[in-house]
């Protein structure tokens, strides 16, 4: 009696929230109703005694999939007035798709045949009371259905790799942190101690406090201390310079990073 009441409560909320998923105006509300629907489905699993499936449903669908849905939907820039505009145009196509699905469902129901020995082979709950749900599922999945199960896993793996390949872009302009290179960096490779004469300044020593091999000076035109810079400055001092910095030969980039 109690179980039946609980079942109908869960089932009613499930159907209602599923309806709200497709009828709610705000897409964020739709996703939240979808989560409610998942929860009630988990509740139905619990009533049927399938506790492992119930928990997995919550962990996978509510805890991971719906979070990502919500994540994306929240960032959509939804304009509610624009959403109403397409209804006239898309209604016929939507109607046709819905109609085809309805006819297919009806055909499927009309030719519904249950296996006669269904009662002997299918158990929602483990046959022995001492066997837990998890163990019973493992018994079936990892023995009779091991190849199908592994094939499912492979399909998912391929889909995952495909998603990564499709979305991974190497952006040449982006600056990336190379943590290994940062860790490898030693004072000897990036710092040079100079004996700077009093009153002369760094300029007399080349004007550059880093070892030249650690830094491609030619790549950065106009850098303080390069030969090109020195020439430009000399010309500017003579009053002959129009261009302050002339790119050195063999320039790799034009960056002034």
């Amino acid at each position, binding site marked *: 009696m109690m179980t039946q009441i609980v079942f109908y409560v869960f089932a009613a909320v499930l159907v209602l929230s599923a309806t709200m998923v497709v009828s709610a105006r705000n897409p964020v509300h739709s996703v939240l109703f979808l989560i409610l629907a998942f929860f009630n489905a988990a509740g139905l699993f619990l009533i049927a005694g399938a506790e492992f499936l119930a928990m997995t449903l919550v962990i996978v669908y509510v*805890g991971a999939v719906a979070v990502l849905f919500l994540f994306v939907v929240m960032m959509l820039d939804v304009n509610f007035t624009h959403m109403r505009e397409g209804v006239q145009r898309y209604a016929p196509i939507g109607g046709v798709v819905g109609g085809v699905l309805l006819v297919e469902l009806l055909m499927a129901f009309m030719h519904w045949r249950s296996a006669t020995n269904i009662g002997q082979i299918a158990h929602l709950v483990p046959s022995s009371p001492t066997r837990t749900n998890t163990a019973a599922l493992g018994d079936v999945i990892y023995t009779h259905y091991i190849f199908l199960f592994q094939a499912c896993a492979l399909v998912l793996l391929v889909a995952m790799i495909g998603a990564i390949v499709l979305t991974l872009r190497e952006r040449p302009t982006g600056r990336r*942190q190379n943590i290994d290179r940062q860790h490898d960096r030693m004072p000897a490779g990036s710092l040079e101690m100079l004996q700077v004469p009093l009153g002369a300044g760094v300029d007399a020593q080349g004007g550059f406090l880093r070892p030249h091999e650690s830094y491609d000076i030619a790549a950065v035109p106009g850098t303080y201390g390069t030969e090109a810079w020195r020439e430009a400055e000399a010309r500017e001092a003579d009053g002959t310079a129009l261009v302050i910095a002339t790119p050195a030969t063999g320039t790799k980039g034009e960056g002034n990073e």
Partner: protein
Amino acid sequence: MADFFFHTTLGQLLLIVLESLAVLVPLLLGVAYLTLAERKVMAAMQLRKGPNVNGPFGVLQAFADAIKMLTKETVIPSGANRMLFLFAPFLTFSLAMIAWAVIPTGNGLAIANINVGILYLLAISSLGVYGMLIAGWASNSKYAFLGGLRSAAQMVSYEVSIGLVIVSVLLAVGSLNLNDIVLAQRHVWFCLPMFPMFIVFFISALAETNRAPFDLPEGESELVAGFFVEYSALAFGLFFLGEYANMFLMSGMVSILFLGGWLPPLAIAPFTWIPGPLWLIAKILFCLFVFIWVRATFPRYRYDQLMRLGWKVFLPFSLAWMVLTAGFLMVTGLLPGGAG
């Protein structure tokens, strides 16, 4: 008397209520004093005194804070989604509470000793992200929204490594029941043979509870206060309590999975005199101290470093350790065969 509690419907309902109160009242008191303990411990680490005005050693500070929070005005920003805005803190708070239903405080001493206890804990802790995500969206504020997005990405990432760590523990136990997990550690606590996993789990727990050095969803230096920037008064208080109750929960999970739950360190005389629940509480308090210690020690991670740690370090490492554990158990024949 026992007849009334165990054999009538009303008695059983009363029993469940009493059991829940026996867990929740100490938990809420603990949460109230954890806020004080955090301030005191961090003050000691930074050579300050911490709260010391209300009552001796400032012990009444927690109640002063509570009264302050209750008497302030709840402000709902214009343009906010009222329903969801108020729903989010309740969700966060109640999720942190209901998870305690399955935590065993002694042999068989849990409100619900269910077969899939660890999955239940994983499910509940993975729901915690909704409170923040909904709060961030419903506030109609950019800071709050950014905080919500960060928390969603962060918690989903670290749940992956938490899941894999739990799988390696379960391989050694052979059951999803939390009671069995503790009993499997009678001879040696799992923190010794699985020390790397213990560390990975603890760091992931820090990320899962949004604690320093992973407190980016709050990130007060760049997002003001992140997802709860618009909250005030009781609604803020519920988030606050929820966060600290989650710390208790994660410490409880660390204690049960790796520190032997209610079991004493050695099953010999002076240790066995202390009852099991006290051992569990002591272990939880130790974990909480480390939470606070970490907060006082480490600067906040940058977001890309956080993601790198979760996906490129913890995920492959815990996956490799899981395969290693399975292989080791298989070779040595220690694999617990088909738990009943």
